[in-house]
């Protein structure tokens, strides 16, 4: 299990470094685009998970350096943090090497044409999805097993958010209508609806829509075809709000909406880490819904 100990080794080295607190702050900021100074919040975060997240968001060492550099430029103590950034980069480059797929962590060298990703200690292989983006090749799946595009998508958090803000059955009906055809409440459609879980429908929608706008348009069409605007609109907007976060970072820019392109996606994608304690914090989940939908 050589690769798993690489991640452990890197984590350990960074944790034991004399500037470990600053290292953690910088890594956190590079992942989330926000600067955290609160000791307690930082205490609760696991460095290893942050490192994994950073790796995931930056498929190559060049991406990583660029990301770290960008953050450092926004800080007051640039010189000091530039050094911290190079420590991080130096350590983490150990993780950017190719290995065969029998090991736990699989990392890739990017090809110029393809966007590659990092597989990190995946507990459930079948949950991985292929992330489609408008600007990147619509068929990102490479034939060779070592350079496949995979991003983690937290089905549990997404499902929980939608259930919190709308009726699960209504959500399913709207999703069904958005993906297939208008739900007719007959025996056949009920059986089809029972066959697919809410999770599966959400995943399908996510996979077929490269941008948030696609999601909105599909769901709005479904709502229109179903009639009963009040209840169905409520369900559709809960779904849109919950899925918005999967398509780009809504907190970094003033106007809220980030046009999705291949450059910004790597650095600003705020994919939720399923094991991250912050994801369980209700405040953090609800803050997305405090941001009113912005006009593009």
């Amino acid at each position, binding site marked *: *299990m050589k690769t*798993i*100990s690489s991640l*452990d080794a890197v984590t350990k080295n960074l944790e034991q470094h004399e500037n470990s607190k600053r290292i953690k702050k910088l890594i956190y900021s590079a992942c989330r685009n926000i600067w955290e100074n609160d000791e307690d919040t930082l205490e609760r975060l696991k460095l290893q998970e942050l490192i994994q997240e950073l790796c995931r968001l930056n498929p190559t060492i060049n991406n990583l350096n660029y990301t770290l550099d960008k953050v450092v430029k926004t800080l007051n103590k640039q010189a000091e943090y530039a050094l911290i950034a190079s420590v991080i980069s130096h350590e983490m480059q150990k993780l950017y090497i190719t290995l065969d797929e029998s090991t*736990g962590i699989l990392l890739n060298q990017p090809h110029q044409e393809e966007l590659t990703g990092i597989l990190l*200690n995946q*507990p*459930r292989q079948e949950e991985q999805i292929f992330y489609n983006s408008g600007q990147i090749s619509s068929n990102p799946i490479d034939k060779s097993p070592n350079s496949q595009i995979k991003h983690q998508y937290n*089905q*549990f958090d997404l*499902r*929980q958010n939608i*259930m*919190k803000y709308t*009726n*699960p*059955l*209504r*959500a*399913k009906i709207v999703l069904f209508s958005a993906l297939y055809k208008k739900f007719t409440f007959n025996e056949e459609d009920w059986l089809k*609806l*029972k066959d697919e*879980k*809410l*999770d599966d429908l959400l995943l399908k929608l996510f996979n077929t829509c490269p941008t948030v706008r696609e999601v909105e348009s599909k769901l709005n069409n479904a709502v229109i075809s179903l009639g009963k605007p009040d*209840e169905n609109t409520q369900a559709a907007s809960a779904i849109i709000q919950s899925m918005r976060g999967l398509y780009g970072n809504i907190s970094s820019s003033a106007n809220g909406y980030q046009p999705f392109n291949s450059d910004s996606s790597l650095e600003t994608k705020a994919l939720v880490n*399923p*094991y991250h304690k912050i994801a*369980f914090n209700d405040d953090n989940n609800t803050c997305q819904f405090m941001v009113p939908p912005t006009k593009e």
Partner: protein
Amino acid sequence: MDANELLKRYENGETKFFEANLNGVNLFGADLIGITLNKADLSNAILIFSYLNRGILNQANLVCTKLSGANLNQASLISANLHDANLHGATLQGADLRNANLTLAYMLDTNLMDADLRGANLSGANLSGACLRGANLREEKRMYSASLRGANLHKADLRGADLTGVDLSKVDLSGANLSEATLRYADLSDANLSEAILYNASLADTNIGGANLKGANLMNARLERSNLIDAELTGVNLYGAIMADAKLTRCQMSGVNLSFARLNRVDLSRANLCGANLTEADLVDAYLARTNLTGANLSKANLIRAEMSSTNLTGADLRGAVMPDGTIND
């Protein structure tokens, strides 16, 4: 009483309908918020998409009732009979379902967040895809004893749920998320936990004998004194798990990741740990009679006083390990 009469009386301000006979009525989409239907007979009724938020339905008869998409948030259903009820996509957030009968209930994609399910009987229920985050199923001696025996909880969300002492024998928890959940003293014998997420879960004193945990993630889980005899743990991630005094006799653990795990006083007799990663694991006083550690990585592991006289260490990596007699292997 028929549906129209009920709706008329409700609109006129009446809310108490104790023991009402509403067998088979059609109340599709009805707004009955805050209604009281204690001991009422609603069996076979159609309550699809109805609004029963904060309703009081204690001891009501809801056998075979169609409640898909119904809203029962914060409703009280104490000792209600929901046997074979259809709750597909219903929402029961914060509902009080203590001692309710939910045997064979259909609860696909149901929202049961923060529900009080103490003493509820969910044997054979289908809870696939349901969200039970923060739900309380805790066993309380002589008062509440919930059962999920043989239930289907495939991909259910049980994060932070309290499942202390619950009967989860033969349950299907494959792909379920049990991070931070507490399963202390629960019975998970022969359960299917394949691909389940048990990150940081509390499984101390739990019976997991014969269970299937293939591909599960048990990073940092607490398993002190647990019974894992004959369990299937091939390839499982137990990084940093705390397993002092656990019983792992005959466990299938080839390729398992036990690095940094605490395994003091653990019984690993006859267990198969072929190719396992035990880097820096704590195995003080561990019992390793006939344990198969072929090709295992035990670098820097602590094996002080471990019983290893019949352990198979062919090709094992023992660099830096502290051997049973206290000497460090170089």
